[in-house]
């Protein structure tokens, strides 16, 4: 699917609107879009909606040997995928420039800020540590993927519980959730990215740009910060030169936004925790708003399956009776066997007809004259072969098969033979031989 380019008049319209301090969605310059966090039924699964941008995050864990350079630290792995669902033009499995830069930024935000205690993930130093894997999927792209992914990532990490382990001497026991309550990861702080888009060489600034605004922006500044006003990452990209006071102003805005978002995240986590504790309903089904006309729910419905047995019996009774199948192999002569339908082997018939044809050819050798030379020589050799042991024509097909198996007779011969004389695919002949081999063994 190809992406639609932005037309020049759209571009001019957007830039003019920004000059007049207006945004398409009616927000002010420093306004953030609405954030909605919903949790899945599994631990460590959440969907974050930032306006219409949607990111799915899932955390999983695994016991792995640690890196030799850091034997007492757990391994963290982050991966953001731009699913082709999110926007036309995104291809699956392609490491685009955008994707690489986003992944690197999220790694710096989540790993390099040391927000997750990696030493607590160690089980046996130098042997077994937990690998925490965070998968993020962009589901709908409406701008500002960075912020949405960073929120989704940290929320999923906070929501995740890993199985409890105990070490007794050399023995490591991993407990199932029924045996022992899973333990949360130890998270020191929550770094959250806030993006700023610059227009007209940095004259105009917008917080949380949408996809359209991202397309016309000159530069982008991303600041990752936690609620203690500690800056975790700053990245400026694009063709804009910023003044020191602009960055200072942005960091002040970031502090305000981060405080709001952190509060929202904590509230969402608490609500989910409460629902789980009280045994209430949770999961994606509960997060779908009921009143919307685009949604519809149905309670658990019964399906009457009372007389399906009779119905099935009827269908089987009406159907043609299956041909008799011999489950046990039929032994024609000692050392041979046949498995499959019917007593008469279908390939035996073929062989006979083949031989008949061969006999015919024997009579009128001109018939083969139009065939290519190579084939002809091969044909004559097989003819000789049939001549040399005449009684085979009369005997049943097994012996002929044995002839084919002999090493001096190249298997290629039979293949060409069949392909000329009948439209029997050579594969079949090959299979026959294989089957033959197996049974004669």
């Amino acid at each position, binding site marked *: *699917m*190809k992406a639609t380019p932005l037309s020049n008049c759209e571009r001019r319209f957007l830039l003019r609107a920004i000059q007049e301090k207006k945004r398409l969605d009616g927000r002010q310059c420093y306004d953030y879009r609405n954030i909605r966090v919903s949790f*899945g*039924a*599994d631990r460590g*699964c959440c*969907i974050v909606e930032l306006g*219409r941008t*949607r990111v*799915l995050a*899932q955390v*999983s864990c695994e016991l792995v040997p640690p890196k030799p350079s850091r034997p007492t630290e757990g391994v963290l792995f982050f991966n953001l*995928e731009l*699913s*082709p*669902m*999110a*926007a*036309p033009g995104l291809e*699956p*499995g392609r490491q685009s420039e955008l994707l690489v830069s986003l992944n690197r930024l999220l790694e710096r935000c989540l790993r390099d800020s040391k927000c997750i205690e990696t030493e607590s993930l160690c089980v046996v130093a130098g042997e077994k540590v937990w690998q925490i*894997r965070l*998968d993020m*999927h962009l*589901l*709908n*792209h*409406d701008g500002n993927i960075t912020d949405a992914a960073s929120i989704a990532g940290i929320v999923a990490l906070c929501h995740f519980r890993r199985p409890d382990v105990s070490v007794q001497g050399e023995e490591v026991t991993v407990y199932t959730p029924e045996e022992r309550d899973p333990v949360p990861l130890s998270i020191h702080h929550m770094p959250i990215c806030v993006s700023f888009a610059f227009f007209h060489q940095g004259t105009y600034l917008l917080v949380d740009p949408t996809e359209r605004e991202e397309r016309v922006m000159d530069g982008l500044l991303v600041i990752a910060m936690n609620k203690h006003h500690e800056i975790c990452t700053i990245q400026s990209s694009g063709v804009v030169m910023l003044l020191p006071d602009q960055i200072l102003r942005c960091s002040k805005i970031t502090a305000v936004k981060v405080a709001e978002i952190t509060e929202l995240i904590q509230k969402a986590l608490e609500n989910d925790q409460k629902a789980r504790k009280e045994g209430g*309903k*949770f*999961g*994606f*089904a509960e997060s*779908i708003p009921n009143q*919307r*006309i*685009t*949604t*519809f*729910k*149905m*309670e*658990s*419905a*019964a*399906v*009457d*399956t*009372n*007389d*399906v*047995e009779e*119905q*099935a*019996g009827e*269908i*089987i009774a009406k159907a043609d009776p299956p041909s008799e199948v011999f489950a046990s192999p039929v032994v024609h002569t000692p050392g041979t066997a046949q498995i499959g339908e019917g007593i008469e082997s279908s390939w035996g018939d073929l062989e006979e007809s083949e031989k008949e044809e061969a006999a015919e050819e024997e009579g009128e050798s001109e018939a083969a004259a139009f065939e290519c030379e190579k084939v002809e020589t091969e044909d004559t050799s097989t003819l000789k072969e049939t001549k040399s042991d005449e009684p085979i024509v009369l005997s049943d097909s097994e012996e002929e098969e044995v002839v084919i198996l002999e090493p001096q007779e190249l298997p290629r011969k039979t293949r060409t033979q069949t392909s000329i004389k009948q439209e029997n695919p050579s594969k079949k002949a090959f299979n026959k031989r294989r089957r033959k081999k197996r049974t004669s063994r």
Partner: protein
Amino acid sequence: MAVEMEVADGQCRLRPFSCELGLLSRPDGSAAFLQGDTSVLAGLYGPAEAKISKELPDRAALEVLLRPKVGLPGVLERSREQLLRQTCEAVLLGVLHPRTAISLVLQVLSDAGSLLSCCLNAACMALLDAGLPLAALFCGVTYALQPDGAILLDPTARQEQEARAVLTFAIASSDRKVLMATTKGSCSVEEMQQCLAAAQRAASTIFQFYRDSVRRRYSKN
């Protein structure tokens, strides 16, 4: 949350269903389908301009992608993509849009059993939401055969693990025809026919659900 199903006097139960249509802004059609705790999100683009290499002269080229939640798509996802694509192609009137491309992307949101049938349902809802011309609707029904021979509709992940065989059918709305059938494990001909007959009945309930949700979507209030 495991919704336990009672199997009382030959009755099977579908887990609570819910669906949301048109929830994504970028795709031309989108749907989230939930069966109990299993949920799949589908997004559909097209019919749109196709790449020259993928273009078909007589009909629309349909591409189905199934994205797992953790890790990269593997062999299982590939084989399911094939099943889903062939099922969609069977009902999609692609000849009306020759030389175009339709791409359907399915994202697993959570897997709590009967994932393939949920994928089928989500795919059909996305096709409906995109307003593509279809010859019929289809739905997915999964049955599990328990070791004692009883059949179980819409099994959870745990029930699937314990089952002797798991059968998934795609049923078309016209004459309840079978569009696709796939089984895992071993079952007899009688059991297979039983499940199929039961699946055709469950399909009626699911099609009623489709009808109600689309009616609600296009209602004025």
